[in-house]
């Protein structure tokens, strides 16, 4: 963290960048938030630890419009999103100075809470070079929790510790993958249709349409979302029927299909804890199965799966036939 502050300060000072896009401490000890820093003095508020899950690449859309370069801190998985935004001409690579920050997995405060740890006042050991165990100070004393057990779901299926784009690297990254990426999706696929339906009905009925998923998602970067515009007579309004969440989430997943890098921000930010990444991951799995392995955001020029085709593609009836 100190190193990052120092390096950012140098780059600000020598005029390489006009501002720094990173995280600063939030009102609670475990919710740092994205922030722009324009002076060296402000940098003392810059933080970087296990709770800095937020993917900053989307903020580069606005930063690309500003004068001068922006220093942006990107974790390995964030760089996929960044590349995808560059590919879609939303972010100007020339306007970014990327520091690829190290990552040893990001933390999910809910995972800690689910272990019965309540009244959290502070969490120690969340920094990049911290110990394997977190020490959590609560109203009722100190609690311990393995770092690994407090990691976000997405870190257990991490795409890898390599940065797909950067100008310089800072800090070690670690492979945190210890689960199969599609295991969750496959488990649901194995359920009978009725159970699948019940499962999603339960999950989606929690949705309060706060739009946190949409706001956090780097692929959901439309200037104006179709659900806010009059384009389809589908503008957001008081839900007249129960269908709208479903439609919203299906369409949202469809709109990002082939563009979603599986960064997991949607699920991370959902205040209701809906496993929204399942929709995106289902599409990714289907795309891999039907059209060959595809990972958005690797920086290749490959056509996106939904703007591409082959003469021998599977017919839609394949869905019915596989039962």
């Amino acid at each position, binding site marked *: 963290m100190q190193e990052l502050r120092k390096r950012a300060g140098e780059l600000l000072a020598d005029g390489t960048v006009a501002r720094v896009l990173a995280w600063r401490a939030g009102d609670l000890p475990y919710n740092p938030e994205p922030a722009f820093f324009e002076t060296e003095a402000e940098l003392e508020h810059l933080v970087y630890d296990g709770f800095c899950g937020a993917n900053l690449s989307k903020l580069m859309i606005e930063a690309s419009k500003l004068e001068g370069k922006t220093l942006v801190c990107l974790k390995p998985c964030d760089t996929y999103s960044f590349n995808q935004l560059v590919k879609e001409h939303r972010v100007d690579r020339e306007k970014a100075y990327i520091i690829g920050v190290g990552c040893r997995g990001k933390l999910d405060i809910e995972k800690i809470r689910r272990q019965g740890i309540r009244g959290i006042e502070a969490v120690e050991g969340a920094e990049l070079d911290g110990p394997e165990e977190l020490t959590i100070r609560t109203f009722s004393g100190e609690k311990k929790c393995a770092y690994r057990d407090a990691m976000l779901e997405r870190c257990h299926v991490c795409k890898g510790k390599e940065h797909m784009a950067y100008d310089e690297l800072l800090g070690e990254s670690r492979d945190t993958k210890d689960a199969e990426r599609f295991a969750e999706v496959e488990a649901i696929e194995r359920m009978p249709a009725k159970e699948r339906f019940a499962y999603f009905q339960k999950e989606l009925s929690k949705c309060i349409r706060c739009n946190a998923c949409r706001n956090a998602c780097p692929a959901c*970067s*439309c*200037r104006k979302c179709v659900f806010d515009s*009059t*384009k389809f*007579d589908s503008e957001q309004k008081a839900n007249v029927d129960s269908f709208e969440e479903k439609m919203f989430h299906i369409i949202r997943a469809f709109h990002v299909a082939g563009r979603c890098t599986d960064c997991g921000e949607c699920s991370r930010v959902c205040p209701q804890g809906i496993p929204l990444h399942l929709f995106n991951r289902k599409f990714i799995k289907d795309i891999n199965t039907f059209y060959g392995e595809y990972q958005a955001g690797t920086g290749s020029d490959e056509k996106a799966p939904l703007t591409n085709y082959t003469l021998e593609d599977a017919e839609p009836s394949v869905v019915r036939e596989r039962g």
Partner: protein
Amino acid sequence: MQRIGVFVCHCGSNIAATVDVKKVVELVRMEPGVVWAEDYPYMCSEAGQSRIAEAIRTQKLTGVVVCSCSPRMHEATFRKCAERSGLNPYMVEIANIREHCSWIHKNTEEATEKAVILARAAIAKVNLNTPLQAGESRVTKRALVIGGGIAGIQTALDIADAGYEVDIVEKTPSIGGRMSQLDKTFPTLDCSACILTPKMVEASANEKITLYTYSEVEKVSGFVGDFTVDIRKKARSVDMSKCTGCGVCQEKCPSRKTPNEFNRGLNTRSAIYTPFAQAIPNVPVIDREHCIKFQTGKCGVCAKVCQAGAIDYEQKDEIITRKYGAIVVATGFDMIKLDKYGEYAYEQSPDVITSLELERIMNAAGPTKGHLERMSDHRPPKNIVFIQCVGSRCADERGKSYCSKICCMYTAKHAMLIRDKYPDVNVTVFYIDVRTPGKNFDEFYRRAVEEYHVNYIKGQVGKVTPQPDGTLLVHGVDLLDNHQVKIEADMVVLAAAIEPNPDVRKIATMLTASIDTNNFLTEAHPKLRPVESPTAGIFLSGVCQGPKDIPETVSQAGAAAVKVIGLLAKDKLLTNPCTAKADVLACNGCSACANVCPYGAISYEDQEVRAPGVREIRRVAVVNSALCQGCGACTVACPSGAMDLQGFSNRQMIAEVDAICR
């Protein structure tokens, strides 16, 4: 809010017999936006149209819905009618209550209910229609004919005659097609070559016609009036400008074992060859697959003997790109393969032949110099059996469901010619039906029976068994006498079904012309637009559209030419205004739309965008409406809905869905 008039057509009893049109009128009056509704026996009639025109004027209509037949029939009629009355033609929508309703439903209540729903959907759509203006596009005054058979030649000659440039692309080394393989033609018994070669010469001599033989269409892009076509001129290995056509190279060529395609493989040819004596151009090609020089590097005899120095082993395929206003498909036919008809022993015995092979045997330039003989032992046959409908009129997957149309007549011709030249040969024809519609056709067939005593037996042959002595035992049946017939024939001729040239599928795909399950190209209307493809600017000539004899092919070729001339005579074409349009305010500039556009109609510009709170330069999509054909692929690729299709906008489609599901 629009002021919509709804006009419900009875179509005589076509609609009114199943749909309660009065009730439809009564119910649509209650729809939002509808200020006028009426019914009339024939809306498309002069009187019907004038009712619409009058309502537009008196009721100050801003939108019109006609509940009638398919928009594919009369959308244009009603749009013109609206335009004449001062209403933008694109404010008219059709509710198809005939093909999609009255003709398929029997219950009046159901049909009426459905008609009302269809009308509602159209009304909901019109409520969101906006006036559209058609643009204009240029017409390249040059036509392309694909296929150099009689159909292609005739079409090209007629187009050239009107003064337009026309190119013929022919896959084989010479123009002439199937007709050049025929010996005589029914029903007048003219020599096929005698009537065809003058036309071939004319095509070659006509300065408006360019021949690309030994060439294939490689790629087609563009649209009516402005097609761009890549033609692959396959390497002939002979310099066309130097060759004198003396033929010495073919005489001296040491590679002589290649089956002769022109003679249907009944004999062999040299590796350097012209398919037949009257070939145009009279310039040979080297079949590189069978040429010793190309296969082993050693030979080069042809180059040595060529006085003109025309042989060029280094020649390469050449791709040329040309622009055309119209394209005519004249790819013709071939006979089906008979490998699935084991019972007729075609693959077992060389004396079981197809009719086209018989044509070559009867032809003086053919493998037997015109002598009728068995291919196995070159003895003249004494008993010939003709079997009709081999693979035609089949309901199974072995054959074709259609009647090949020409077999009855050419078999009568063959039978007659054989009996005429060899009166001691017995000729038996096994038929299912003898079909002879056509001028002087039945008379021709009757002559075969009455004058030449050809033995016609009604009944399909069950099996042909080659005998050890070289004869062929034909197991037939005489259905009229009701007994089985066994004939010891020494030659059996199969009237194999004809099928479209197998290459046509590839060509149809390039042209985006639709094709039916039998690979025949589909016409725009089976009765009223028989020589046009539904794809604008693509025309059909000859058997590629359906089985035809020569006179029919020639008349269709002429008809296709007239349609082409009609198109090329125009300087400008009106373009479809239902094109895509981007809303710059919502456009992300992400390129998803451009990635799916098949016409390259979408480009990106940095534009200054101004809106409340926004003033910036953005990368936004711009549609070139002259290139856009209005498929709508981009509209779905666009996540923000910035790309929309005029005339089929998102809101219009949603309104239709809502109206139907109401």
